[in-house]
């Protein structure tokens, strides 16, 4: 077996030592720092990205909480405004009701006055007509002129008995 040819040991060992030292130096000085650099850059970049994502998330949460606070505030304000408007509307309505009631009461009183006046006028007129009718009827029945005062007294008495008049 050529593996046991002792005279081949020395040259193999010499070149092995030389080539292995060369490889060690190339790895330690050139190749390994390059690969390590690539890996570190990536790990650093990933860590940075994660940090940035965490920051953005925190920002987003702040914005959300601010928005919710604003929403709550707006809702409270709106409710206050609605309540205020309700109170004002109620006040206005009451005032208007009072005014309308006042006007109606005035008009009702005026109407009652007018009705009373009309009734009195009608009664007075009716009294005159009744007196004339009674006088004429009496003249026809008895053929004599009845004094105006007697007629009036009789008509007044009749009107009072029938419950009319005011």
């Amino acid at each position, binding site marked *: 077996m050529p593996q046991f040819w002792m005279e081949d040991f020395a040259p193999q060992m010499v070149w*092995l030592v030389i080539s292995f030292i060369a490889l060690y130096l190339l790895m330690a000085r050139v190749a390994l720092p390059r690969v390590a650099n690539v890996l570190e850059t990536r790990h650093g970049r990933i860590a940075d990205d994660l940090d940035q994502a965490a920051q953005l998330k925190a920002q987003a949460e702040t914005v959300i909480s601010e928005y919710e606070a604003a929403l709550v505030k707006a809702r409270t304000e709106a409710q206050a405004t609605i309540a205020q408007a309700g109170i004002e509307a109620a006040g206005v309505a009451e005032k208007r009701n009072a005014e309308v009631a006042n006007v109606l009461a005035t008009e009702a009183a005026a109407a009652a006055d007018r009705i009373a006046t009309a009734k009195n006028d009608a009664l007075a007129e009716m009294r005159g007509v009744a007196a004339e009718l009674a006088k004429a009827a009496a003249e026809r029945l008895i053929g004599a002129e009845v004094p105006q005062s007697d007629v009036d007294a009789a008509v007044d008495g009749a009107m009072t008995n029938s419950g009319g008049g005011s």
Partner: protein
Amino acid sequence: MSADRHIDHSSPMHQFVIGRLNDWQLGGLDISFSKAAAFMFGAVIVATLFLVLTTSKRSMVPGRWQSVSELWYEFIADMIKETIGSDGRKYFPFVFSLFSFIVMCNLLGMLPYAYTVTSHIAVTITLALSVFILTTFIGITRHGTHFLSFFVPKGVPLVMLFLVVPIEVLSYFMRPISHSVRLFANMTAGHTMLKVFGAFVVQMGVFGVLPFALIVALTGLEVAIAVLQAYVFTILTCLYLNDAIHLEH
């Protein structure tokens, strides 16, 4: 070349000849450059170029090739973290180089006509002895004489220690042998087997299709073994480092 070194070109062992390209000598030391040395530098160049070129874009989202480099890096980093812990970070370049060297030599050896550096005990014992010397050195410098307590397991009765301690010492010194032979034997056996079945394909004519199909399957298996053995060598290195650093069994 001496006569006993002749090996027939058709032999399945011929692929393991280191293939000297010259006959350089340095003060009596044979430093001849060979196919073996060329493949060692090939592994160095391929590993370095792969890692450098695939990370040239430094993409935030890695492409396929960049992912391979990142997985390769993290595979070793995680292995050290799990077996040694944070104390092992210092040895990351060494462990990474060791794994890369072995896996590249193993995989380059799978290419047709290629030479497999790790199929030689000379190579694997050098790597294993380096690990052995390094771990022993770390153990002694970190713990001083307390390092010897590594050979004395806790909770063993005093009488038994006379038996246990020599076994512990022996097993400690056997480490570089098992460490190196495992890789060398796996690589040698795999490549020899492929070569033997390759010869069958030629010899059996039409029926050579059967060993051919077997070779296809075995090649897949050998690629898996190439990676697996590199992993085994590396994780054992991590375990030995852990023993030296933490003095634990």
